[in-house]
């Protein structure tokens, strides 16, 4: 498996950077442009790039679809759970101001939920589509 060595090395360098950039977009969302949705797409892109270069099977081993499914559900539970917690703390539904740490922490938690769900769903859609196509053998590239 020495074909596409340039692609493989380059993407191995890029993938961690893509994830870090995704997290930057995630946390920058508190102060300016960015947020969970954009960050989720970027993080999913890192895995999709891995799948494109190293093959779908490798990617499925790294991030199994079952894990992505649970991630998608967990994101929604975190988001809606913040609302339930704020009711438990005496506020209205999704009232960030009653949460310890105030609005900052509330929005941060909600956006983490968005990140999880968006990244997982993007990945699941990719797996669903890519799984239907024939893998291209190395010599046909």
């Amino acid at each position, binding site marked *: 498996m020495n074909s596409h060595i340039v692609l493989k090395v380059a993407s191995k360098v890029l993938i961690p950077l893509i994830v870090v950039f995704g997290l930057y977009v995630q946390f920058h969302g508190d102060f300016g442009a960015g947020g969970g949705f954009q960050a989720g797409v970027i993080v999913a892109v890192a895995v999709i790039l891995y799948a494109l270069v190293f093959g779908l099977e490798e990617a499925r081993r790294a991030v199994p679809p079952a894990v992505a*499914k*649970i991630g*998608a*559900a967990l994101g*929604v*539970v975190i988001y*809606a*759970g913040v*609302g*339930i917690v704020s*009711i*438990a703390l005496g*506020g*209205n*539904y*999704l*009232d*960030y*101001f009653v949460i310890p740490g105030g609005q900052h922490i509330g929005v941060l938690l909600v956006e983490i939920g968005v990140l999880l769900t968006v990244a997982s769903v993007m990945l699941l859609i990719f797996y669903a589509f890519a799984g239907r196509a024939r893998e291209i053998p190395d010599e046909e590239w």
Partner: protein
Amino acid sequence: MTPEIAFLPGWLVQHAPPLLVVTPLIAGVIAAVLPSARASWGIVLAITFFAAAMASFIAMQVMEVGVWSYALGSWAPPLGIEYRIDGLNAGMLLLVAVIGFLCAIYAPASVEAEVAPENRSAFYGAFLICFAGLLGVAITGDAFNVFVFLEISSISTYALVAMGAGRDRRALTASYNYLIMGTIGATFFVIGVGFLYMATGTLNMADIADRLQGLEGDRTVQAGFAFIVVGLGLKLAMYPLHSWLPNAYSYAPTLVTAFLAATATKVAFYTLIRFVFGVFDPGFGFAGLSMIWLIAPLAAAGMVVASFQAVFQSDVRRLFAYSSVAQVGYMLLGVGLGTAAGMSASFLHLFNHALMKGTVFLALGAMWLGFGVTRITDLRGMGRTMPYTSAAFVIGGLSLVGVPGTAGFVSKWALLVACLDRGWWWAVLALGAASVLAFFYVGRVLEMMYLREPPQHDGHAVTRSPAPLAALAPMWILAAANLVFGIWADIPVRLANAAAAAVLGSAP
């Protein structure tokens, strides 16, 4: 607070509106990832029961105390998202929640026969998310939030319809067709909301209504109105925008057909009324004119043409799907009248139609489970082979025709009186024609069931095979409701009058 609910904990009472929507949503995603379909069903049953209880509590509270407004995130309306329950949507919430619970009882029988094993948990998840979306559309007072919930319910509906592929592959094309039409509808709707936002600078429906006063001649507002009516018309299968409905209803799993027929188009219909009357003012020239010259004539045409098409169907669920398009026409006619009596009749028919179509589609589902019935000729002798299911079907069918003593009669009569009051003789004619046609298409099915011999199998007549109790119980509850509300119509009439009053702004 009413004394009946004094035993509930305070936080549950105070936060009932968001909890009604959020618990099915959270439970839905959890149900979708559970490994065991039985456990998922347990969640569905518990949550829909909880929602039905909450919805009846909210409805009682609104009837006694009046409008209930809840500010999400403590952001006061009109800036924040407001959940607002008045006489109009209290009944809708109750309807969706109760039908959802009844369908949940029937769910395992249908799912185990029709949905592939690896999809069952996902099916229950999608069902709960659709349920949450429908409740959300009904409860919210924010125009953009309506769009969000409408899409939550629609997208999960596309998945639910597509899961009928385990039984018939045509479910996939039916679902795809529905996806395209539904997405166009949603896009039109959100463009319309965008226009309203442009003209008024607010998304809270009550606030939009206030700020629209004096903007009658504004082209932006008029364009918004047109987009919203067409978008919602697609969602509620207004004739001639109904082309997605017959296939979606015929090839979806039987449970989904019963649930959608009784709730999804009803909620879209509610949204149309909310916008046409609650946000726009029917006194606006363009709104009033489009009701008289567009909605009412299309409603009458839909009633007659779709009933006529129903008569010639050979697939039995398709027959009743066309009948649903015709019944949407009845409801729209009541709205087109623009009078309090018409609105009340329209709402009454909305409730009653949910009851009759719920009964009919649950009975057809049980017949499919028992004998694989899809075509009308498959129904031969069903009165003898599945007597209890057939009897429930008869009640639903008679109610659909509007035989006195059934719920269908009450609402059709109210609609007839409302048309006469307005002096719309052509509408009375259309009502009569559609009812005669309904008599034909229901009669055709009943004749097959009761006057023909059961089919022969290896030289013997097919034996009796009653439906499971899980299918019979919800079917008979709905069938009984058809009879009860046909004789003691006080409760639905009171709800419908409250709805009409809330819409036309005369009382809470």
